């Protein structure tokens, strides 16, 4: 589904990613872990199409297309979704309001008919239960005055409505208490199936107790320095990132 090869990227001339290779197949969950500043969020942002990064080398293929050639909205319509680390506040725009446009854009792209108001509301109601989000939140301005937990739940709610093929969760666990974490994880798990994939970007192992990954990759200095199964995450939790640092420095 997703193939990242030798991806190098920089921001304002500063090199952040130094050759990433990553393959994600349908039905898989990948976790990308790493210390602060290792490039985790940069990778997520580049996948979603944020323009402030410059890709200097390498390629990304998503569903047999050159992802880097696609505008952010084209990526979304192809089925890529980024749950933001810091969801933006947009006064005056409600979740329901913009999500209807988003859903119908994606449906149009897939050659499906636009949803009418009633069907759309039914869809919304159904997905609301998944992340235990209520009406009042959706009719308020997007993320405006939302708590940290509400913002993250709203991201997963949008994911549920848009039904992406590849979801990238960028530090969705940060700022969540354990109850909210479970709600978010349950939401993600119930959306998993053999045709879609999830990439979880996180600093801590905690979320991975609930969203169990098939693969864990450790990012350090803009490179994946270690890959393994879910035990790698536990090992990292026990030994800390210093263990990775030492190993990485030994290797160079």
């Amino acid at each position, binding site marked *: 589904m997703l193939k990242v090869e030798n991806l190098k990227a920089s921001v304002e001339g500063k090199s952040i990613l130094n050759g990433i290779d990553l393959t994600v197949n349908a039905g898989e969950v990948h976790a990308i872990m790493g210390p602060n500043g290792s490039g985790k969020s940069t990778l997520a942002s580049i996948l979603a*199409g944020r323009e402030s990064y410059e890709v200097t080398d390498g390629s990304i293929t998503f569903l047999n297309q050159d992802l880097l050639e696609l*505008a952010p*909205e084209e990526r979304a319509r192809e089925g890529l*979704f980024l749950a933001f680390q810091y969801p*933006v506040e*947009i006064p005056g*725009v409600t979740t329901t*309001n913009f999500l209807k446009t988003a859903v119908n*854009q994606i449906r149009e*792209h897939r050659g499906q008919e636009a949803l009418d108001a009633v069907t759309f509301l039914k869809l919304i109601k159904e997905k609301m239960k998944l992340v235990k989000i209520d009406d009042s939140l959706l009719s308020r301005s997007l993320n405006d005055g939302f708590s940290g937990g509400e913002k993250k739940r709203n991201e997963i709610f949008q994911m549920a409505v848009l039904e992406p093929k590849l979801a990238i969760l960028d530090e969705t666990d940060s700022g969540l208490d354990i109850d909210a974490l479970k709600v978010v994880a349950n939401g993600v798990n119930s959306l998993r199936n053999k045709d879609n994939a999830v990439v979880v970007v996180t600093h801590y192992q905690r979320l991975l107790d609930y969203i169990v990954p098939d693969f864990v990759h450790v990012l350090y200095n803009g490179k994946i320095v270690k890959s393994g199964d879910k035990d790698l995450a536990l090992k990292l939790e026990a030994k800390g990132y210093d263990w990775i640092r030492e190993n990485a420095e030994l290797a160079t």
Partner: protein
Amino acid sequence: MSTTEKDLREHFNQKYSSFRKTLNGSQSPKIDELREHAINALNQNGFPLTRDEEYKYTPITRALLKSFKFTEEHPDEITMVPPFGEHLISGLNGYILVFWNGKLVFNSGDTPKNLSISPLQDLSKEQQERLSQYLGKLVNYQLDAYAALNTALLNQGSVITLKEGTNLDQPVVIYHLTDASQGPVYTQTRHLILAEKNAKATVIEIYKNLSEDHQGFQNVASEIYLEDAAQLDLFKIQTDTAGALLVDNTNIEQKDNSQVRCHTITTTGDIIRNNLNISVKGQNCESHMNGLYLVNGTSLIDNHTLVDHRMPNSYSNELYKGIVDDTATGVFNGKIYVQPDAQKTNAFQSNKNILLSDKATMNTKPQLEIWANDVKCSHGATTGQLDAEQVFYLRSRGLDEKQATGLLLYAFATEFLEQVSLPVLNEYLERIIADRLYQLKS
């Protein structure tokens, strides 16, 4: 031959002299005296040029000299009632007055007992005498030359009285229509609104420039008195004003417990200048100023507002928002005065602008002058582009750039409508805003 400010004054002095002859002593000496004071003030101070601080960014006098061919001014007799019907907002019912080139051509009449609407020019000498305690007391003809001009030529207009305890079932709707299809026209009207104790009403003023064949120049002034606990919603709708030169002077005086909500929306016009002055002379008053301007091309829209808190315990809140595109210019000057006696005043002001082009200009100046020591006042002004992060967020959900920016601009602009409670007007303005944003490039 180039014209100068002196020529312009000369022209209006002639107009004044011939106008006075037609009155032939039929009017109250007090009103006549007021006119005389006003023309003297105009002659003394002259029309404002851009070296005048209050008109620094607004070259309306220069525009008049350049494009208003006053020597060719069309005679202002109206021999038959023009077809004004198509210019009314459909569904907007109320007590309707239509001024066509400054002449009252329609008065729906049939007002309930607690409301009286009288054409200013039809008042008897005695009525004029009685109203002279109000006329010219709020409009400051010493400070603003256009207010002076309006006062010197004071004739057509309306006197609207809301009797004590009135709760008006329908709004009063005043249309200011300028038709310059036959030649350049100067049009002016003058309005006096007296809201007695506990009266409650909505007044909607609609400004239209019907033709761009020649230059239309519209100069409207009003004086509004709110007695104890009176409540007024006042609308100024300047959305069909393409090509217009327009000056509006609105002056409001508030007594104890009164509330005023002013809503000003402008989307078109060559140069439009709104002066909104509120004098808070009572306690526990509320004054709300809600403004929106969406301009492109070479339009210039200038909102000057003043809230003068003279008594304690009152509250004022101002929010003006603007979207400026192409080479258009926006001007905002918001004065808040808190006089020594006005302790416990709460006064807030905010001006937010989005520039859609590199060549669009916004001049914003909050001006707070506070002489009391126990007050809460705040002000803020922002001018910038759309937030790139917000645009990216929406695009990452599948909206294209145009949809994303359109949605964000719409959300920005329609905050104005949150305070517009009359459904038919809310819908009308919502449509105008949507159409307008569609025209502004994304």
